[in-house]
């Protein structure tokens, strides 16, 4: 996992991509390292998470970590990236500004949907390979990437773009980006929950990514919970072998309202809890069967804040260390 310098975090929508990407950036920045956390969807999720004002198209420090490490964040603005690009290749920055006012830039990214992704991956590659005083500026770059349904296109789009744009500098640029993305410098991590759809999408994404020769990192199981009962009771309950009668005697030792119906209702809830747990356990096996390193992150109680992120980062650090040792 940490042989890589470019960490791309994907997963089904809502599984915690943004949260995990942020926690991973913190983990990688520990012990004095400098990490860039990149947002690609233009939703300012990172600013929200770190409780800072919306990020401009500029690398800004959002957190410091132990040993003077730091995480900087960048929310890539596609239009700005296109202007930068025009400037770089054609010295057209001023004309570009006028066009932006006319809505022409929006239009350009719309007629060639892949253009957007090319600009994003191009910018990411630039950050990964940027050097100053003979060393890389960033020890690692973490990308809060598009969801599993679009990730292979997103990362492979440069190849596709090269086909669509059969001439022009895009074609030339694509090759450089693909070289980084397909190298061992890159790891694509997939975030999942222990639910049917996310696990299914994780399996699909891994198959697609490997078919596209993109290097896959770990599977990150997010929002994992602990069962409330000991193993044996759990199994019995999951099979429906738990009734109010099993609880009534012990409940009788304290004063509670409506004990009869109460015991049955509590038992029904335990059965549901246990069944949910059993279903999760089965999915855990499915995740293991994907043959990738797996790390579980707990469901954090209460609202997500920077404190929670550091806690999740701690878990990821352990995982990184174990991966290196292995």
């Amino acid at each position: 996992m940490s042989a890589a310098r470019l960490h791309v975090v994907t997963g089904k929508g809502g599984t915690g991509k943004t949260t995990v990407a942020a926690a991973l950036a913190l983990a990688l920045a520990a012990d004095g390292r400098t990490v860039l956390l990149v947002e690609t969807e233009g939703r300012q999720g990172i600013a929200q998470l770190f409780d800072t004002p919306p990020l401009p198209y500029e690398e800004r420090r959002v957190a410091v970590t132990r040993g003077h490490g730091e995480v900087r964040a960048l929310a890539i603005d596609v239009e700005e990236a296109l202007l930068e690009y025009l400037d770089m290749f054609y010295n057209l920055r001023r004309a570009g500004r006028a066009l932006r006012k006319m809505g022409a830039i929006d239009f350009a990214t719309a007629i060639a949907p892949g253009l957007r992704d090319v600009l994003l991956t191009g910018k990411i590659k630039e950050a990964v390979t940027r050097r100053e005083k003979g060393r890389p500026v960033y020890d690692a770059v973490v990308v809060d990437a598009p969801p599993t349904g679009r990730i292979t296109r997103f990362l492979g789009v440069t190849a596709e773009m090269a086909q669509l744009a059969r001439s022009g500098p895009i074609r030339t640029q694509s090759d450089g980006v693909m070289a980084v993305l397909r190298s061992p410098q890159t790891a694509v991590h997939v975030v999942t929950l222990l639910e049917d759809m996310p696990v299914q999408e994780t399996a699909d994404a891994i198959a697609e990514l490997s078919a596209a020769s993109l290097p896959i990192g770990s599977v990150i199981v997010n929002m994992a919970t602990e069962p409330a009962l000991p193993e044996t009771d759990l199994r019995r309950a999951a099979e429906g072998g738990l009734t109010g009668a099993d609880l009534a005697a012990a409940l009788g030792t304290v004063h509670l309202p409506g004990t009869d119906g109460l015991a049955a209702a509590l038992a029904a809830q335990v059965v549901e809890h246990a069944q949910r747990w059993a279903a999760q356990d089965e999915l855990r096996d499915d995740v293991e069967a994907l043959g990738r390193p797996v790390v579980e992150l707990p469901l954090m109680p209460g609202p997500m804040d920077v404190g929670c992120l550091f806690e999740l980062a701690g878990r990821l650090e352990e995982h990184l260390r174990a991966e290196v040792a292995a």
Partner: protein
Amino acid sequence: MAVEPAAATEPAGTHRPAPGARPQPGREAPPMDLAALITDPGSRIIVCCGAGGVGKTTTSAALGLAAAEAGRRVVVLTIDPARRLAQSLGLEELDNEPRRIDVPGAAGELHAMMLDMKRTFDDIVVAHSTPERAQQILDNPFYQSLSSSFAGTQEYMAMEKLGQLRAADTWDLIVVDTPPSRSALDFLDAPNRMSRFLDGTMIRLLTAPSRAGLKFVSAGFLVFSRIISKVLGGQLLRDISAFVSALDTMFGGFRERANATYELLHRPGTSFVVVATPEPDALREASFFVDRLSTEGLPLAGLVLNRTHPPATTVLSATRAEGAAEEVVEAGGEGAELAAAALRVHAERMTLAAREQHLADRFTSAHPDVAVRTVHAAAGDVHDLEGLREMAGELTGPDDTPTGIPRTRVLPVRRR
């Protein structure tokens, strides 16, 4: 074109919010009568919409099943069903046409199909032009990228397919699932956005400046056009140009076509069901959608609040359950640990239910007229007919439940 039933009125169970209805905090959400909606012969189209991942597909399929069991001839248009559900319904073959699903004992018929957007687009092209011209379009690289990946194509094709199914007039009821876009509004906006894009001035200027009338072409556009061809390569522009002119001769503009499909949603007999999970993001989307429907004068049946966690009993609060768990452990004896665990499970459940109810209340205070139906989270996911039937029961059954929590809510109203 389809013939409207003589007395086409609004289907039962829908309502148009009174203009200017003001939110009244603390009001109870009205119950939603989906059973009446699906059985009413005047009800011909139900559109299930909402943010991605909230259970639109399952809700559509369950409503379709319930209607078929109530004797109607139903087709469910699904967009992106979970694989296991698709498998168990035999929807895996992508022939882009409805297939009958065997529902033992149903008085009506259930048909279902999975949208193949590229194929739907290809069909339009083939149906509206000569074979040679159709082939030209189908081979065009820009068309190929547009029909398989342009943002909005899926929404637009879903609308198109709905139009086709409705025109066939062989169905009593069409239930439509909407594409899994980030925003629920995409479904309403995409067809227009796409048609604006395809016959917009910009594309004409770029692809055929002379035809669009040179007097509108400013120097800026010419620079832009040059940049575009430099960056993307001139070939792409030529492909677009060829595609647009082929399309033009084919059926006088995309916009008209998109408008026609959009009009369909305004016809009597259509109603919308907004689906959300009890989470802030999903409910925010649901809110936007409800406002949008009311602005557009589209009839809303109500909100399905999916995957709620009502407790099996409410006699014990979370705090009391936590306390009792400690007391039970202190008293000791056989089964004490198990009983304490059961009490903690209950405490967690009450806390979760309270959070869900709080979110539902916030929605209702902003939209007091919107009917609500909650659907409890099944222990696993729904992936067969049996699971759908259970969900259909929760959607269309009576509003009261054995636990005394009405199906408009996650927790009962607190009495003072």
